[in-house]
């Protein structure tokens, strides 16, 4: 019996990808992200669900999410909101509890990538974790001035020297994890914010998990400005030194 998708491997039917979208004031971005996800997953034929974890956004993100749910179906768009802004780590724990996939995809609500590259790479090497990188292959950025590129590469260089993490891009948050791997890692990681993302990869390597990479094009926030001021740099260094001393 010919498969609709052409070249079906029986394993593919069983894999399901749960996309976790923690949101806070993403009223403008959320519909676009969801639309892109639906488009790319639709084209790829992978089985998926999108879990929107809204932390009580005052701008009405949840209402937009409800509309999207009506449009795309409650089996594809799950809403698991929380009362207030509680942080990334707990958002993941919360999301995992409601995820029915054997793979979890994490992405910032403001990134735009071809999400199907993640499952593709994972299947290639059977990786426990696949991470998007801006620094390898044809990965890159758009609209970054020299200052920002310099800070980014400089910070990454220091990170590589100090942590030797075995991954080229630690602060990205476009990743795919096997569900049980993510569960294990979230248990172990204690940092906050994007340092948390860094810690996840460092710990993953320590625990012997395999990490694959895919190049990603980081096009800046669809709406709004990304901040990279002195405060950000200081807190990055603090986070880095903490990881250096504790992992």
């Amino acid at each position, binding site marked *: 019996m010919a498969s609709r998708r052409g070249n079906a491997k029986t394993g593919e039917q069983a894999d399901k990808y749960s996309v976790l979208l923690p949101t806070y004031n993403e009223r403008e971005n959320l519909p676009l992200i969801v639309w892109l996800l639906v488009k790319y997953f639709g084209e790829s034929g992978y089985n998926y669900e999108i879990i929107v974890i809204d932390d009580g956004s005052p701008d009405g993100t949840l209402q937009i999410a409800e*509309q999207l749910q009506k449009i795309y179906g409650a089996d594809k768009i799950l809403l698991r909101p929380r009362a207030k802004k509680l942080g990334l780590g707990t958002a993941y724990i919360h999301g995992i509890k409601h995820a029915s996939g054997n793979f979890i995809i994490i992405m910032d609500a403001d990134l735009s990538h071809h999400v199907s590259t993640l499952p593709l790479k994972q299947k290639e090497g059977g990786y426990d974790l696949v991470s998007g990188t801006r620094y390898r292959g044809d990965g890159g950025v758009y609209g970054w001035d020299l200052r920002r*590129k310099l800070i980014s590469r400089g910070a990454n260089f220091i990170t590589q020297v100090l942590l030797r993490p075995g991954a080229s891009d630690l602060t990205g948050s476009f990743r795919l994890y096997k569900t049980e791997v993510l569960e294990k890692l979230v248990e172990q990681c204690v940092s906050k914010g994007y340092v948390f993302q860094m810690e996840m990869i460092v710990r993953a390597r320590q625990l012997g998990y395999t990490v694959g990479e895919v190049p990603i094009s980081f096009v800046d926030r669809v709406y709004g400005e990304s901040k990279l001021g002195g405060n950000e740099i200081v807190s990055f260094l603090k986070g880095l030194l903490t990881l250096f001393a504790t992992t």
Partner: protein
Amino acid sequence: MTKLLEWLLGLSLIGMAWGLVTFDLLDLQLPPQYRELAWPMPVYLLVAFGCYSLATVGYRVATFNDCEDAAKELQAQIKEAKEDLKKKGLKM
């Protein structure tokens, strides 16, 4: 072992080796050329590392990909998405 401890261990070992040779702590009576070479090594290594860092970061900044195509594609997709969603009944 944490990275910090690894570094401290590594630096201590190198430091000891350097101290041994430079100050002849084990009374090995090494030829003076060894001592002359060893003595400024820490500074040489630091400078070498500094140069390597600058060159590496400089190269990486210069070759940092600019994704023009991805940005264009995204803009087109945003338009498409907005139209499609409006058609499907989304009120933004």
